């Protein structure tokens, strides 16, 4: 087990209520674990406690079966953190941002050029960060987090501000990190990213985990098994929901297909966003 969290409780100074209320979960080695929830739900607080930016939390956190509180500077050699906001030295070049921060780690870092190539930013290597777009800055923050080959990655909205093609590229790089052996805790609002990457997902709302499972199991548990069929009835478009698991449903589907009137066929599998709304009554945003 890479991360084990037991009944974590945290309250910010001067706050009236706990930001985390007995949160418990665990992350296996080499797993990509997603934390999903609306703003203010407690996702970032969990990450901050795990990467030791916040102290004074009640409960227990173990990293590689060792209590987090007992870990010193070595812990920071083992983790990489990509923040949601691009906290970079804007007056320096992208290369300088990587190489100078990389120098803070004892473990050898990958070359900035190699990393820039992986996310399609080679031409921006020598440019000042202040000239980068939001998406480029976000990619640079991500590269800074992975450059020293950490065992544990905390990624907060790693694909924010990027177009779909670049997002796919980033998803590929995160998978490569997982394949290298890194464990990833991912916070995102992007359901596509969560679904494409996460081995397991925890929905967090109001400081509590309301569901935690694989994306497939969550969909099976909270979706419907029916199939929606759109077909032409004369010149009018009509639709019918059939139960694919029953004999009646299958024969209805065969009849419509044989008649050649079927326009579209959709499963009624719930999206992660719909599951979250169903569980909490709140939207992911």
């Amino acid at each position: 087990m890479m991360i084990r969290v037991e009944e974590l409780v945290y309250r910010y100074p001067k706050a009236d209520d706990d930001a985390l209320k007995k949160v418990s979960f665990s992350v296996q080695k080499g797993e990509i674990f997603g934390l999903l929830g609306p703003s203010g739900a407690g996702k970032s607080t969990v990450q901050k406690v795990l990467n030791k930016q916040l102290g004074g939390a009640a409960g227990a956190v173990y990293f590689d079966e060792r209590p987090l509180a007992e870990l010193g500077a070595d812990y920071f050699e083992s983790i990489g953190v990509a923040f949601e906001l691009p906290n970079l030295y804007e007056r320096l070049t992208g290369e300088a941002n990587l190489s100078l921060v990389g120098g803070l780690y004892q473990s050898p870092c990958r070359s900035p050029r190699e990393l820039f190539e992986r996310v399609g930013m080679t031409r921006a290597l020598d440019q000042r960060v202040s000239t980068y777009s939001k998406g480029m800055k976000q990619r640079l923050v991500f590269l800074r987090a992975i450059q020293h080959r950490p065992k544990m990655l905390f990624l907060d909205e790693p694909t924010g501000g990027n177009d779909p093609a670049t997002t796919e590229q980033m998803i590929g790089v995160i998978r490569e990190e997982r394949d290298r052996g890194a464990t990833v805790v991912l916070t995102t609002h992007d359901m596509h990213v969560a679904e494409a990457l996460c081995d397991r997902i925890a929905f967090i709302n109001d400081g509590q985990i309301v569901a935690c499972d694989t994306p497939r199991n969550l969909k099976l548990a909270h979706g419907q098994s029916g199939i929606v069929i759109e077909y032409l009835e004369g010149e009018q478009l009509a639709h019918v929901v059939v139960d694919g698991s029953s004999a009646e449903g299958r024969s209805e589907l065969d009849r419509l297909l044989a008649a050649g009137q079927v326009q579209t066929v959709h499963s009624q599998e719930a999206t992660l966003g719909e599951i979250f709304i169903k569980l909490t009554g709140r939207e992911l945003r």
Partner: protein
Amino acid sequence: MRRMLSLLWLDLCTVWLSRLPILMMVTVLIQGLILRFVVPEQILIEPMVRIVDHTDERLFARALSKAPALALPDKASLKTWVGTDRQHIGLIFSGTHRKPHVELLHSGSLDSGAVALGRTTATMFWSRFTNIGWDRGHILSHLGADREQIPFNQLILALVLVLNVAIGSILFLATMIFEDKATGAVDALRVSPLGALTYLTSKLCATILTSVLPVFVLIALVKPEEVESGALWLMMIVAVVCFSFLGAIIGVLLRSLFEGIYVIALTMFALMFPLFAYFVPALDRVWLHWIPTWGTLYGVRAALFPTWREDDPVLAFQSMVPALVIFAVVALVLIRKRMFGRRS
């Protein structure tokens, strides 16, 4: 060491790209040129005379009663007064009108106008009783070894050095911390293996390296022979470290340079009190000696003009070391607690 060098390079980039060192370089260049070519080496100050009447019959009692400011009660007080300024001349009249005697006390050079004034004054006072020639009846006493007069522009150099080092060190270090906070880079550093001590040490080194150039330019322009003075550089580096810690405290406690500029201005105003006392010794108070600029100023002056007051370096370190220790401890505690301290 690698970690330290990386962070140092990062800090140097941050402070140089803020353009503050360039601004400071331009400022010290202008200051140096003004001190070298505009501020005169000699400032003419009217010499002053004081008299002690030790004649057997108090021959000058009536004359001195008409100008009481001229009279001092005894030789000891006259010696003290003469010792405070090389333009002061003391006259001690003794003997009788038949056997006149004059002792001149002076701490300046023998051929100065002050000595001439003293001799003329003595001649004028005794002329109502007798004629004293230049060749008899005079003793010229020098209080301590005669010294070269310190050129006025070089005297100002000590003050300008201290002022620039104080402003520069505080601004450079505070700016580096403000930059880390403004960009959020401090969060990235907090989740790296970096510790508070390395963080602060790197910034101190960056400030020292950045301050060396302006200090060098000033000294090279105004008193080039002191560029190789180890004592002066030691004093300057200790001063940079001391004021840098103060800058670190300001940097941690405040959010940005915009918010901090008023605090920095007030701090500089407080640090300038000893600088006023430098020119007006009457303003010198014991509590001023606790302000680190006092120690820096007199230490730098002692390094620049080694024979002026032999105890200056000791006094300087006595003044600076407590401030340095206090600032260092407070800065480190604040950085640990506020920037790197919430990790347990």
